[in-house]
């Protein structure tokens, strides 16, 4: 019994310690992000992003659009990509063995004809069965290949890409017309340093969409989707911005990122053996470039927007989050050797250990912490008043953090124009800490369980690629 008591007290202490540390980190990040975003917004006024549109020196970009069973939206997506404001680009759709009419829709809409396209042999991929060019748009290509999963499709796209930079997209992501130009800006400004950039992913549920473009920004009706709106703002504007400023951005959303082709190809392209190919690539790029002692930047830019649909029901959301967690853990685990190795700078000393602590150890502590603390107070080790006071405190800290993320959005970008919706966002930001965050924690732990089961050879290993977008809109948004 004494051991049990001891463990309980110890665990409560660990939980409290973790709580304090976690929130201290979040507060620091909020401060860093405020500086970063404000600085960015000011600089934007003087940086002349608009002019890059007319500049012959803006490097051309290959847009890679992997598509698996996307017959419903693929034509609109391609149309809106071809209409992006960017001086020179090609769009490469990689049809990843779709079993529906994806290819036929494209063929009809763009008058595709078979072409013997020369591709690099660089990255191994599933068999490419054919390539098509369009009679209507000289900048459109379609690569038709056997199913191999999203990473494999992207690798085929990298092999086929003609230009020095590629932009990886989810088939259902909708870029704003200026998004590519904005996400490319750091590369235009420092082409020798910047190897990859990512933009913000925002939630399209509730927006009015015409021709594959968000024409009117609005909030979703579903509370679950609205909670995700707040969560995404927090994750991108605070989390990504903070890490980017610290020089150790580990995640660029698979939904929207721009990369230097040669570096990605040299580092081996996307990994086909993880569900977190987007995180894994960025972590590997850091490692690859640090190992070679190169000076480089990987940056997050807060205003080029890709809109995506998110799940509105709890089951799909849970599946999505467990998969994200699994992907993240797989990526970090694969590169665990960089942890605390001074050779890897901020990336190895701070970023990777923090992710291990905050994303892997953290949720476990938190989840075990709740019952432990409750048990502790039930057994009289902790006073109930203290517990309640602490719970109130925890919720309030969360509220301040959530609302300040909203403030960041509101002060700098103001995408949600209607007052009523802004008010709803505030309510959701406050409510987020009562239940939703705990749910996220639980899914993270379940994701960990998935990883453990897979490692021991249990669990389902669904054939990869069979629906790398199982529910529309499972773009990585964290």
């Amino acid at each position, binding site marked *: 019994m004494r051991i049990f008591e001891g463990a309980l007290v110890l665990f409560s202490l660990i939980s409290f310690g973790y709580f304090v540390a976690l929130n201290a980190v979040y507060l620091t990040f909020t401060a860093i992000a405020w500086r970063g975003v404000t600085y960015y917004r*000011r*600089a934007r*006024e*003087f*940086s*002349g992003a608009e*002019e*890059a549109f007319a*500049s*012959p*020196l*803006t490097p051309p970009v290959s847009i890679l659009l992997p598509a698996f069973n996307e017959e419903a939206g693929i034509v609109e997506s391609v149309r809106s990509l071809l209409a992006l404001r960017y001086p020179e680009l090609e769009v490469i759709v990689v049809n990843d063995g779709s079993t529906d009419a994806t290819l036929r829709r494209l063929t009809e809409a763009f008058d595709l*004809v*078979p*072409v*013997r*396209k*020369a*591709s*690099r042999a660089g990255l191994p991929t599933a068999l490419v069965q054919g390539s098509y*060019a*369009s*009679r209507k748009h*000289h900048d459109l290509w379609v690569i038709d290949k056997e199913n191999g999963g999203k990473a494999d499709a992207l690798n085929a796209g990298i092999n086929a890409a*003609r230009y020095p930079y590629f932009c990886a997209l989810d088939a259902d992501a909708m870029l704003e017309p200026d998004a590519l130009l904005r996400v490319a*800006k750091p590369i*235009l*400004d*420092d*082409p*020798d*340093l910047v190897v990859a950039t990512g933009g913000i992913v925002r939630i399209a549920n509730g927006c009015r969409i015409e021709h594959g473009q968000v024409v009117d920004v609005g909030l979703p009706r579903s509370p679950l989707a609205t909670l995700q709106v707040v969560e995404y703002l927090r994750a991108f504007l605070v989390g990504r911005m903070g890490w980017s400023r610290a020089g150790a951005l580990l995640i660029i959303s698979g939904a929207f990122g721009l990369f230097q082709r040669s570096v990605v190809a040299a580092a081996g392209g996307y990994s086909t053996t993880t569900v977190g190919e987007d995180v894994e690539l960025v972590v590997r790029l850091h490692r690859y470039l640090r190992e070679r002692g190169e000076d480089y930047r990987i940056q997050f830019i807060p205003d080029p927007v890709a809109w995506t649909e998110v799940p509105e029901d709890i089951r799909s959301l849970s599946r999505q989050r467990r998969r994200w967690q699994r992907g993240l853990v797989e990526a970090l685990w694969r590169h665990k050797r960089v942890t605390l190795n001074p050779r890897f700078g901020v990336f190895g000393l701070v970023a990777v250990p923090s992710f291990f602590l905050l994303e892997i150890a953290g949720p476990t502590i938190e989840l075990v912490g709740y019952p432990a603390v409750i048990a502790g107070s039930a057994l009289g080790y902790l*006073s109930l*008043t*203290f517990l309640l*006071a*602490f719970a*109130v*405190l925890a919720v*309030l*800290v969360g*509220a*301040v953090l959530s*609302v*300040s993320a*909203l*403030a960041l959005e*509101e*002060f700098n970008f*103001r995408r949600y124009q209607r*007052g009523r919706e*802004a*008010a709803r966002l*505030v309510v959701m930001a*406050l409510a987020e800490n009562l239940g939703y965050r705990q749910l996220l924690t639980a899914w993270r732990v379940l994701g960990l369980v998935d990883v453990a089961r897979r490692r021991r050879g249990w669990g389902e290993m669904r054939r990869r690629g069979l629906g790398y977008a199982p529910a529309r809109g499972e773009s990585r948004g964290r």
Partner: protein
Amino acid sequence: MIGGLAWVSGVLALLSFLLVCALAGRRVALAHAERRRLSTEERLRPLALALVEGESVELPRFGAYESRALARVLARYARQVSGTALAHIGGFFEDRGHIAREVAQLESRRAWRRASAAHALGGMASTSATPALLQALGDSDRDVAAAAARSLGHLGALDAVEPLVYALVDGRLPRAVSAQALLSIGPDAVPRLRGLLADAPVEVAAFAVDLIGLLGEASDSPQLVELLRDTSAEVRAHAARALGRLAAQDASDELRRALEDRIPFVRVNAAHALGAIRDAFAAPALARQARGDEFDPAEAAARALARVSPGVLVAVAAEPGSGPHLAQAVDLLHVQT
């Protein structure tokens, strides 16, 4: 302990309450300001247009707000128009004392003040601001320097050419900004750029070559042709690209020789240039490169061959072992007509 927690909680509650209030208040204020700005600008636009067109107009007595709004509209026009219209705008700002005021702001201790002054001067179309802006180009704050660079570009300040090229190469300025500034100075910058070819560092020369390709004309080609034999591959590659952009017919002999260059990147640019010049004599060499070279030079050669001589392309692509690049180029020939 609990007292402490309660105290902290109270502070936090107050903090979130204040944050929410600030958000709401700001939103209302901003919406109001935005409406006022738009309607004022719309109201002043006919006046601004008359000023741009140099019509003699009686300026009504303005408050400071209207005066700023008019200046904003005019500054936007200054970035879009040239010729006498631009001179009219410059005259307006000069007469009304705006230039002197902004130049004084360049000495401010706050970086964002200096940056917005440097930015504003670019929209005021008056060259009297040039010396102050040249000085601001060396500002320790990157934003200030970038704003000054853009403004110097808008003003077409020839004295800014060399400092801009050096700042670009040193990475003191965002590359896109300084490059764009140089481009907006325009063809008048070419003699200055030519001056940089002789004994400047390699990166400076390479970039100057690039700009000559964009701003110059065919008569600039002899000097670039010589650079096709430079010791630096970067300079050779940029020279080839520039010659293609200038469509320099008389460079074709040397460009064909550049197809033999050791460095793939130079061969890519040489092939591209020969395509742009449509040099029919290059067809056999391009065909050879398209068949046997590495990916990028082969691809460039095949595309160039399609422009130079579709007939030769079709013929060589039909030969056995002609490779993927010629095949692709032939297929595209049929698609893209």
